[in-house]
């Protein structure tokens, strides 16, 4: 009987759970035509949660391409997510965390919650905006003030003239802002309430149109693939267009499972988004993507992925929605978790002048980790073109420990890429050689 039991246990863990170590097959999954395998899921979802290094970065540093240097301009942040470079060179950082803690619908949610928590920072989220200042341009950010606090999981940031817009997890709010200001002059004004019940995917990304008339807010789904019920998905998995003056909102594009970063392509009126696709149908499904956002388009979630590939986990199924689904522009790879997006310019040097930087927070739903880096997607003629180039790497050590996880990325017009690291609670600054750089800190915790 004991033998029967152990044999069965072995059978269970190897054949059925498909969790016997090994590597995930590597498929070409970046660019406009990713290779998509058939959906597959064993008895248990494949998981490899980031295992944070005990001493943070210690003496290690992220790796940047030849000709660039990287330094930490701020440490001991409180879970930094997105960044905004203000016109006077100040850097504004949104720190916080949202979602309904401990929302358990099934036994699975309890275990998943405990496991995924391990891969994140244990620091209490700041729920605030921090302003960093390098007054003399020597690369040392000597000034640091709390611009605003007691916000509800602030994430997306946008400046339009003298108005600073912040996308909290439940509303877009507006602060008055004068150049040089280091503290908000008062509590913010609510512009538009956002869907926030449950808030499984709580991050509300934000971008302003070049003329400043409209705000665009990315609202993530309330579930992986509809398991919270389709009622919970009302007004979710979409991008809203909001009139910055009146706060009136309308649906701009739908079927985007979790649009975590939005940005307008410089010199155009074209909105781009990075989107997190669905889990639990394999290590190589579904690629997260970067796409231009077409007004009125339906990008598939939950019924379809990567154009018209059906996902029949959703019932009752809608064939009409499958037929409507459009294909995104550019795959970044499955499970990479692209949370940051910023278009580049000449200040980053000729090789990285035309394209976009993408911060990839890193995977959990595959054995071989994916993401955990910042990549550069080259653009030719206004469109993503060619394979992504690793720009900041080394977030995981050779022993598999994770030093940090990149989130928001922002090109600072003064000539740097700013990267928020929400595991190590660090703000990184990557500069082309020849620009002022601060002395290297001995150790980054």
């Amino acid at each position, binding site marked *: 009987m004991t033998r029967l039991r152990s044999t069965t246990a072995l059978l269970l863990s190897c054949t059925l759970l498909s969790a016997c170590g090994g590597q995930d097959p590597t498929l070409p999954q970046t660019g406009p035509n990713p290779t998509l395998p058939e959906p597959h899921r064993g008895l*248990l979802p494949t998981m490899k949660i980031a295992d944070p290094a005990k001493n943070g970065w210690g003496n290690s540093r992220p790796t940047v391409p030849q000709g660039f240097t990287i330094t930490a301009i701020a440490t001991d942040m409180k879970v930094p997510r997105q960044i905004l470079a203000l016109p006077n060179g100040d850097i504004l950082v949104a720190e916080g965390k949202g979602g309904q803690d401990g929302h358990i619908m*099934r036994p699975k949610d309890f275990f998943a919650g405990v496991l995924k928590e391990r891969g994140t920072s244990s620091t209490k989220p700041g729920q605030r905006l921090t302003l960093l200042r390098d007054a003399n341009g020597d690369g040392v950010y000597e000034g640091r003030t709390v611009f605003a606090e007691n916000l509800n999981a602030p994430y997306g940031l946008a400046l339009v003239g003298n108005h600073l817009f912040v996308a909290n997890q439940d509303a877009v709010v507006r602060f008055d802002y004068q150049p040089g200001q280091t503290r908000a002059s008062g509590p913010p004004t609510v512009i538009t309430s956002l869907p926030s019940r449950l808030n499984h995917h709580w991050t509300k990304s934000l971008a302003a149109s070049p003329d400043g008339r409209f705000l665009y807010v990315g609202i993530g789904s309330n579930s992986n693939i509809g398991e919270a019920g389709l009622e919970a998905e009302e007004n979710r998995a979409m991008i809203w267009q909001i009139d910055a003056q009146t706060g009136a909102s309308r649906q701009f594009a739908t079927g985007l499972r979790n649009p975590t970063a939005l940005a307008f392509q410089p010199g155009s009126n074209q909105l781009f988004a990075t989107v997190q696709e669905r889990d639990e149908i394999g290590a190589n499904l579904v690629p997260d993507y970067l796409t231009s956002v077409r007004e009125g388009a339906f990008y598939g979630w939950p019924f379809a992925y990567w154009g018209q590939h059906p996902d029949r986990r959703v019932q009752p199924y809608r064939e009409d929605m499958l037929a409507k689904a459009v294909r995104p522009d550019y795959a970044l790879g499955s499970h990479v978790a692209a949370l940051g997006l910023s278009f580049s310019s000449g200040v980053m040097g000729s090789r990285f002048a035309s394209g976009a930087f993408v911060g990839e927070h890193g995977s959990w739903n595959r054995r071989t980790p994916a993401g955990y880096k910042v990549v550069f997607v080259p653009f030719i003629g206004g469109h993503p073109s060619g394979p992504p180039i690793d720009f900041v790497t080394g977030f995981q050590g050779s022993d598999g420990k994770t030093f940090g996880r990149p989130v928001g990325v922002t090109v600072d017009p003064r000539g740097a890429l700013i990267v928020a690291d929400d595991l190590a609670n660090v703000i990184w600054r990557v500069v082309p050689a020849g620009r002022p750089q601060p002395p290297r800190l001995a150790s980054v915790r």
Partner: protein
Amino acid sequence: MATTLPARRTLHPVPAVLLACSLSLFLGAWLSDWTYADSYYVQWINYAAWLNAGGMVFLGFATLWAFVDIFRKDVARDRGSALFVLILLVAFILGLIAAFVHTKDTNAPMPEALVLDVLVFLLVAAATWLGFSTIRSGVAR
């Protein structure tokens, strides 16, 4: 003169109650999954996952009790007792698979979940039947 008579004693009250609890919970899981499959209202399949998990706790202890009984010298056994333990073990393994299947999202557990619910319920029902009609302890004093 002392006489030793073979006595038929039904299942001990503790595993009896454990089995009764798991039986009703597994029945609930089956009915909930059935309702989900009929309505696609996700809360029903969520209930099914919890009912299955609850059933597994009671079934786990019942199986453990039966397993320990195998090694007890003072418990009389016949062919039925071995079958009793075997059925409980199979029910436990299938119930565990059902629990894992219920971790899949939205409609992905179907139809496997429903099939497993029925099998587990029938196996636990069979084990309970067998348990109550098996010689467990031997002597009348």
